[in-house]
């Protein structure tokens, strides 16, 4: 019995010791944490970066814009990803780098007859004032709102660009990622949602807003009204290896990759 007890204690000690030892070993990767909207793009760039810069590693994690900013503030991550403009109280603390511009697309089911709406109509739709597609020139179907959760960078950008003082209706279905919004809109003819233009990829119909269809060209020229920045934030000057990744992301090569994926170059 006593032997067993000793064995168990040694085993526990070994596990604890081993995990502490291993935990210290992976310090070589640059950690990039934050917005789930930027995450897929950052992952792609990280892969390319590791290919072209042997021996350097980048670790990308999601969690959301606010989590990314907090991670950068607490030095948990070297780079935070944020898919909205910084808030006033955040501006002094961080150095933001715009890595790309992203259009926010208002998406509906492909069978929806509506092609475009005005910005005012988008606001009224999401505020719950317009409740039937007939009211914006479509078929006689109820409008089903799909929004993102409170605190999401995409939601905050949408609120700032579209809603102003109005609140998003509380009847709106809440989904926790761009992917989930897309999945729902794809299968529901009544649905309307908003998501990163770069992630729409042709399975959904994106509505023109104020007569401008959301194309890369319209976002670049500034005609399309719903544009937000994708930011990398750091506290103070970034470390050498973090700077290497940021430089790579801003290089023409990486910017071309982002453009191919549907984002718009940083100016």
């Amino acid at each position, binding site marked *: *019995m*006593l032997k067993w*007890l000793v064995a168990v204690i040694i085993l526990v000690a070994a596990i604890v010791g081993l995990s502490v030892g291993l935990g210290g070993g992976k310090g070589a990767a640059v950690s990039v944490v934050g917005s789930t909207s930027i995450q897929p793009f950052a992952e792609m760039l990280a892969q390319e970066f590791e290919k072209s810069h042997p021996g350097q590693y980048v670790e990308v994690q*999601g*969690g*959301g*814009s*606010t*989590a990314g900013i*907090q991670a950068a503030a607490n030095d948990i991550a070297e780079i935070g990803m944020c898919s909205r403009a910084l808030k006033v109280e955040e501006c002094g603390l961080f150095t933001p780098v715009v890595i790309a511009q992203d259009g926010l697309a208002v998406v509906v089911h492909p069978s929806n007859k509506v092609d475009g709406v005005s910005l005012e109509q988008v606001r009224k739709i999401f505020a719950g004032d317009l409740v039937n597609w007939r009211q914006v020139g479509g078929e006689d179907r109820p409008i*089903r709102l799909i929004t993102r*959760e*409170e*605190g*999401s960078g995409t939601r*905050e950008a949408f609120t700032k660009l579209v809603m102003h003082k109005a*609140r998003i209706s*509380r*009847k*709106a*279905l*809440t*989904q*926790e990622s761009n992917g989930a919004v897309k*999945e*729902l809109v794809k*299968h*529901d003819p*009544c*649905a309307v949602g908003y998501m990163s233009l770069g992630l729409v990829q042709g399975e959904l119909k994106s509505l023109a807003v104020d007569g401008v269809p959301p194309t890369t060209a319209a976002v670049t020229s500034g005609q399309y009204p719903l544009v937000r920045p994708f930011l990398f934030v750091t506290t103070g000057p970034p470390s050498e290896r973090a700077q290497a990744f940021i430089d790579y992301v801003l290089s023409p090569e990486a910017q071309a990759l982002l453009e191919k994926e549907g984002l718009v170059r940083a100016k």
Partner: protein
Amino acid sequence: MRPWRSIAAWWTNFRASPREVRKERCIGGALMLTALSAISGLALITAFIFKEGVPIITKVGLGDFILSSNWYPLEGEFGILPMIAGSIAVTLGAMVIGVVFGLACAVLLTQFVRPGIVAIMKPSIELLAGIPSVVYGFIGVVILVPFIRDYLGGPGLSVLAASVVLGVMVLPTVTSISIDALQAVPRSFREGSIALGATEWQTTHGVVLKAARSGIVAAVILGMGRAVGETMAVIMVAGNTIDIPHSLLDPVRTLTSNIALEMGYSAGDHRKALFATGVVLFVIIMILNTIALTVSRRRAGKAQSR
């Protein structure tokens, strides 16, 4: 002075005792230590949740926090009534499904079939508990939600979808605890009833079910605890609207999904409000567990006095 003296007394006593006794004491002490560390983990978690959550409740006011339906955390409005209503609606729905099927299953397995069949069916029902909740959620999203949307109307993501998914998830809890309760009914009750000329069904519902009632109540309440606490599957199929549902086809948000959905993003008061949501959930589950414990303890007391 007191504790020191008692420790000293304990030590003299310990040294005076024979080797074998000392060894046993050591083992007992080590086991006590592991048990205590598990409990202190629980205590720490509880203390942490309350420390983070209670200040915001006092700041907002308990009444406003629980009874207001305005949840705009970024604007400093924290009302969780819709989530409480959502949790209650979804849990009740799940219990209707879980209890009807779970209890029927338990009655069948204990009263009406050969033991050979029980040996196959009971483990397979218990296997349901081993399926990860994401899988239930996924099946719900892919099969159940489109079915509800196409045939019953509404967005599909609804109280009904969440209830069905949760109902299946609580089945193993309800069934296996009910089976235990039904098997604990003495054979003599059943035999006596049959001997008096009652049919099998009369015996089952008039005697066996009545005798096992408190155990079944405990099963239902433990199942309820599981349903209230489930998160992942509910997020996937409930729609997460911050609105009090008016029909089975309306989407809802539960307390657990509220925490899980917004946790990654939240900061400051918003985060504290999510902890406060956790406090409310904690209290609800504590109440449910206490009821379950008292009911099953009362049963144990009765059994002894028999």
